[in-house]
């Protein structure tokens, strides 16, 4: 859904590694995948956008790829993505602070920055405050309805996404698990990875465990 919205602006922020179609001339202009970040797909996309190319999302394109099957693999993937995206943003920081060079690129870099840094921090802070308020002042019905309101928003979004993408409606129920468990784990991982990136702790690709 996010890619569809970005495609409307012709500014998809990451051409996924498993599937992407490029014009030969575009690659000749900007070069191949670079190896100075851990998110080479994000980097090449930002370079394409900086060169003035438009990037669309093709909803009918199909690609088979392997998703993490354990919590450790998931953390490993998100750790690399977060740090890689931050490295790519840092690489193109000129465009981040100067919207006169390419406004579309500045906009997309800020959305990436928000997604990688601001949103996880806000989510963790909100959860921490929720726990603190519940423990300190008792779990009042007001706090419950606040949580229920957020969960309802997630459910509505899930229903819209499932309908728009013509997916199975049974997937909507996962929105509650997403709210209670998944997103918090991911955001904590993102926050930790961000801290490590700012501290400059060394990282490596590691070995990818394939199951398929």
């Amino acid at each position, binding site marked *: 859904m996010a890619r569809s919205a970005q495609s409307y602006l012709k500014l998809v922020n990451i051409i996924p590694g498993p599937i992407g179609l490029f014009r030969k001339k575009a690659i000749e202009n900007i070069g191949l995948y670079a190896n100075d970040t851990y998110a080479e797909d994000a980097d090449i996309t930002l370079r394409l956008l900086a060169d003035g190319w438009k990037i669309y999302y093709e909803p009918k394109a199909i690609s088979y790829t392997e998703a993490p099957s354990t*919590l*450790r693999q998931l*953390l*490993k993937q998100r*750790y690399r993505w977060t740090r890689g995206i931050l490295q790519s943003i840092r690489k193109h920081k000129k465009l981040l602070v100067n919207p006169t060079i390419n406004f579309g690129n500045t906009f997309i870099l800020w959305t990436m920055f928000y997604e990688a840094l601001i949103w996880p921090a806000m989510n963790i802070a909100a*959860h*921490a405050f*929720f*726990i603190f308020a*519940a*423990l300190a002042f008792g*779990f009042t*019905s007001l*706090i*419950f309805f606040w*949580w229920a309101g957020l969960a309802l928003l997630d459910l509505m979004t899930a229903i819209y996404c499932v309908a728009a993408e013509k997916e199975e409606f049974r997937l909507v129920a996962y929105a509650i698990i997403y709210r*209670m*468990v998944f997103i*918090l*784990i991911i*955001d*904590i*991982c993102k926050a*930790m990875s961000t801290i490590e990136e700012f501290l400059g702790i060394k990282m*490596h690709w*590691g070995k990818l465990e394939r199951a398929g």
Partner: protein
Amino acid sequence: MELIPILSTIILVATISTFILAVGAYILYKIQEGEADRKVKKGVETEQAELVEPSEIGGKKLVLDKTLTEESLAPQHYRTVQPVTDAYGRTGKKTTRSGFKRRPAEPKFMKFTSQGYVTTKEDQNAGTIRWR
């Protein structure tokens, strides 16, 4: 019993548990990654180079009787000679074939005599003019 307090307790417990699980899983992940790194580094430092010995074929053990050098590994039939200068003043390395024995060129002309086909050199009567 009211529903809201039960649901509230479930939500609170689930949120706290997830918080602890997320932090714990991340710390565990970093520890495991660190251990894997140390194992790889240690392995590189201490692992002995593998000594490859020639295998035995038909009960006989193959032994390498001379040290392999760059020269010995080079193709046997070629050797490099000193740079030469040709008639046009160009210099370069000339490679000659040394291993092969050139087969003597077959004589183009043969002569049929009473001893069969012989070369013109072998013909004892060559040069003598005979009148028939």
